[in-house]
């Protein structure tokens, strides 16, 4: 994969999506279907990404104990409403420590 193509296409696409919101007529938002989709789409994407990043290694399921320990600790931190930075630090520290064992 050409990473530069990906980087620039992502950047261009993201900016276009943001600009589009300022250019389209606001009444599009009045349609409840549109609202629902735009609200729920990130929920579905993020939930799927959590799973994929936690247990996938390419096309294989990989139950890596250290990675899952870090992720589990982070999940507890999220549940306890820890700030974002604390969550990612906890994930890294616990996974790294578990890997040393």
């Amino acid at each position, binding site marked *: *994969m*050409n*990473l*530069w*193509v*990906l980087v620039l296409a*992502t*950047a*261009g*696409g*993201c*900016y276009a*999506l*943001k*600009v589009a*919101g*300022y250019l389209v007529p*606001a009444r*599009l*938002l009045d349609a409840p279907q549109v*609202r629902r*989709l*735009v*609200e*729920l*789409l*990130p*929920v*579905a*994407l*993020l*939930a*799927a*990404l*959590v*799973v*994929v*990043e936690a*247990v*996938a*290694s*390419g*096309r*294989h*399921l990989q139950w890596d104990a*250290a*990675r899952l*320990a*870090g*992720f589990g600790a982070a999940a507890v931190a*999220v549940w306890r409403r820890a700030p974002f*930075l604390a*969550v*990612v630090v906890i*994930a*890294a520290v616990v*996974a*790294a*420590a*578990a890997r040393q064992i």
Partner: protein
Amino acid sequence: MLEESPRAVVRDSVGVGLAVGAYGVAFGAASVAAGLSVLQTSVLSLLAFTGGTQFAVVGVVSGGGTLATALGGGLLLGARNTLYAMRLAPLLRQRGLRRFVAAQGTIDESTAMAVARRDPALARVAFWWTFVAIYVCWNATTLAGAVGAQALGDPAKFGLDAVVPAAFLALLAPRLRNGDERSRDANGADTAARSRESLRIAAGAALIALVLIPLTPPGVPVLAAAAAVLLAGRLR
């Protein structure tokens, strides 16, 4: 919300900006670990400037996905910024070129800080200060994380492989909670029902992704989960 002084709004906005911007470290490190160069990583933060999408794209790259699946997942996630822009447009009332600057700063946090204010003048203060604080901090920490990860070597040794799913979970959680600022509707819609629906959607998407991991190329499970949700929304 009580009467606020513009100074208090600036202080809050910068505070949020610095706190959120700091996790650019995690993105910079994850991106270099996925195989992007330090320059590519920084260009993503400077130009794409939307954390969830950036994490999603490098996540697919590290999993060995194709350009199309990485881009597809990233842009779908970035589409929420379109909705934010539509909500902000009448509030910010920017004309001409400034609209195109405001567009770049239209992300989760700047939107949340702006729409929380009743007074449009304060909303504008909140938007611009949050944007600037996050932009500066996010890009500085992205570079630091990228350079740091490059110097450290094997990312798994430092637990960085656990950072990405943790980051996504932290981004997801506020969308599943009752009465959260972002899920609260201006018309006072039933947030508990919405939150239950979000939970169902999240569980369904997670399950679809899990089942598809061994069956489809990397990147596809995420897109398929999103497609299933689009379909569910249409069926109702």
